[in-house]
């Protein structure tokens, strides 16, 4: 019953149809280009922290921060100066000073500052009486990402100042009898990278985007191409011919998979060429993962095309599925940033596993064995959705 030749004829015609629409082809190339461009520049590569030189590194260099020194003591001024030296030296902050907290706060509200560090009255006195002193940090909460960067970088700068002071304090107390480094920082950390060069955020994003492009490209493609033929009436031409419905479905799926893979390939090439993403893994395994990612979703595409009364609705339905998946499946942010119930939804979607597997292959050079759980889940998805979709298609076409 199943006819391989006809399936390939149908697939070829679908691709020819696409090829004849030159403007659409241009758009389909532009889409990953824009995506990769936008996110590539939004996530600049982060310099890696180097513990040996106390280098903190920042993805957001030179954030404006203001010091308010309310204490007139010598220590307060000395440490404020040290703060300026360390943070400007490492290009973390551009530091200004204000006379009062209220002035600084106004500037922050106006958007001129991202953070305020206050040395309160009694700061020097506390240190002089050999108790610990406090500084007060206020950040611009309207931007949570920048806020947490400022917080952790301020803490980092004070860590450096702290250990420096501790060394001095200990030396002053016991006169150099013990190695003060042993007391201040008995254990120090050296970062041993998992892969030879440093991983930028983009290294995380790129494989996710490739997975997203391939998977949703074919989902939208299958749904659109079937409902388009239904709406225009050409589907009757296929159905009235002695062609099995399996061959029609398979033909459409093959065409849209090829389309998705080409788009995914463009995304990958661009991220390598423009954003220096390094591919560590095997291209063959990558293609297998991309193919399975596509297969896992075409059933959904078929269901959408049979449920939607016209092409426009099918298109919107497919995009409606595509959009939340971008967030739920760990494409833009690690899934761990989501509340646990959302994580569960994300993990119920095959895109999560496609992105996960692709990331492991691209970044960590994972072997087929290591990503086998992902692979098996994708295969299971493909099988189950197809088994559900094909009879539904059959029913919808003949009723």
């Amino acid at each position, binding site marked *: 019953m199943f006819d391989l030749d006809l399936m390939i004829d149908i697939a070829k015609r679908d691709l020819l149809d696409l090829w004849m629409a030159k403007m659409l082809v241009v758009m389909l190339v532009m889409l990953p280009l824009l995506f990769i461009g936008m996110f590539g520049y939004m996530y600049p590569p982060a310099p890696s922290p180097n513990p040996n030189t106390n280098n903190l590194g920042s993805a957001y260099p030179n954030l404006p921060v203001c010091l308010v020194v309310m204490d007139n003591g010598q220590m307060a001024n000395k440490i404020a100066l040290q703060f300026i030296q360390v943070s400007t030296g490492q290009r973390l902050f551009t530091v200004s000073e204000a006379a009062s907290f209220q002035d600084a706060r106004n500037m922050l509200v106006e958007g001129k500052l991202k953070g305020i560090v206050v040395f309160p009255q009694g700061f020097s006195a506390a240190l002089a009486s050999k108790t610990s002193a406090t500084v007060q940090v206020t950040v611009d909460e309207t931007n949570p990402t920048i806020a947490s960067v400022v917080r952790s970088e301020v803490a980092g700068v004070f860590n450096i100042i702290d250990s420096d002071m501790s060394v001095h304090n200990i030396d002053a107390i016991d006169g150099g009898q013990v190695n003060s480094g042993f007391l201040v920082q008995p254990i120090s950390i050296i970062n041993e990278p998992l892969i030879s060069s440093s991983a930028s955020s983009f290294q995380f994003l790129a494989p996710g985007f490739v997975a997203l492009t391939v998977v949703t490209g074919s989902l939208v493609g299958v749904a659109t191409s079937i409902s388009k033929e239904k709406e225009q009436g050409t589907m*009757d031409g296929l159905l009235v*011919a002695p*062609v099995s419905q399996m061959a029609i479905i398979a033909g459409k799926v093959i065409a849209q998979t090829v389309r998705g893979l080409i788009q995914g390939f463009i995304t990958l090439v661009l991220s390598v060429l423009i954003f220096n993403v390094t591919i560590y893994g095997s291209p063959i395994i990558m293609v297998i993962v991309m193919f399975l990612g596509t297969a896992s979703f075409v059933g959904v595409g078929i269901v959408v095309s049979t449920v939607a*009364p016209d092409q426009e609705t099918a298109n919107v339905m497919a995009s409606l599925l595509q959009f939340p998946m971008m967030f739920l499946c760990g494409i833009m942010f690690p899934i761990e940033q989501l509340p646990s119930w959302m994580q569960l939804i994300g993990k119920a979607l095959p895109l999560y596993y496609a992105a996960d597997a692709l990331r492991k292959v691209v970044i960590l050079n994972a072997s087929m064995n290591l990503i086998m759980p992902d692979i098996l889940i994708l295969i299971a998805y493909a099988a189950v959705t197809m088994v559900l979709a094909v009879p539904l298609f059959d029913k919808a076409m*003949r*009723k």
Partner: protein
Amino acid sequence: MPEIETHDLTRRFGEFTAVDNLSVQVQRGEIYGLLGPNGAGKSTIIRMLSTLLMPTSGSATVAGFDVSREANDVKKRIGLVSEKLILYTRLTATQNLLFFGRLYKVDSSTLKKRIDELLELVKLTQFKDKAIGSYSSGMRQRVNIIRALLHDPEIIFLDEPTTGLDPQSTRFIWDLVKRLKSRGRTIILTTHMMEEADELADRVCIIDHGKVMADDTSRALKDKFHTESMLDVFLSVTGRELRDSTSQHLSMRGMMAEA
């Protein structure tokens, strides 16, 4: 044995009965005209006979094969020109015809020869490599008709083949239909044009509300109603009331989604 035969053929869409216990026979080599107001059930009959729609009850055989149980045998022997154009507008005439011909497994050299002949027949050879989207409606319909003839079917369904065409194209298509009849093909034709039924159909079947209201030669029908005008016959049979309806079945025709 009739080429097409239906027994109590019925199709319901929810509450709406589009075709109601239809029993008709069409002989081989005949042009059988289906006439009826909008929503009378003409297209539903064509879709069931061409295996695109399952009957709710009753049965139909086409070329001796049951449309439900032996759909594939039916498909090989029929050609369909439906209300909507079955052509891909982005592709050229040649690309379209090659694609649809392959679906019937016509072998490559025969297919190419046939496409050339048919394009010549409908005088479109010089436009064969232009996209269908750039064609006029008359040109499109000429390609659409030869698209249904690529596998040389015994039975041809023409659902309103000249609606919206200019008189030249209409005349051209009528001549083409007569030519097919002269070669022994059986043709089922639906139309709103009384002139078309008069000119082409050996027998006219007037359908309303899914039922046969009259089924005879046009001469016999005119004699019966004492008129020389097919339009008078038609209006006598179906009444003068306007058929405005927005049934779900009509709004979704051709888009199989139905609740």
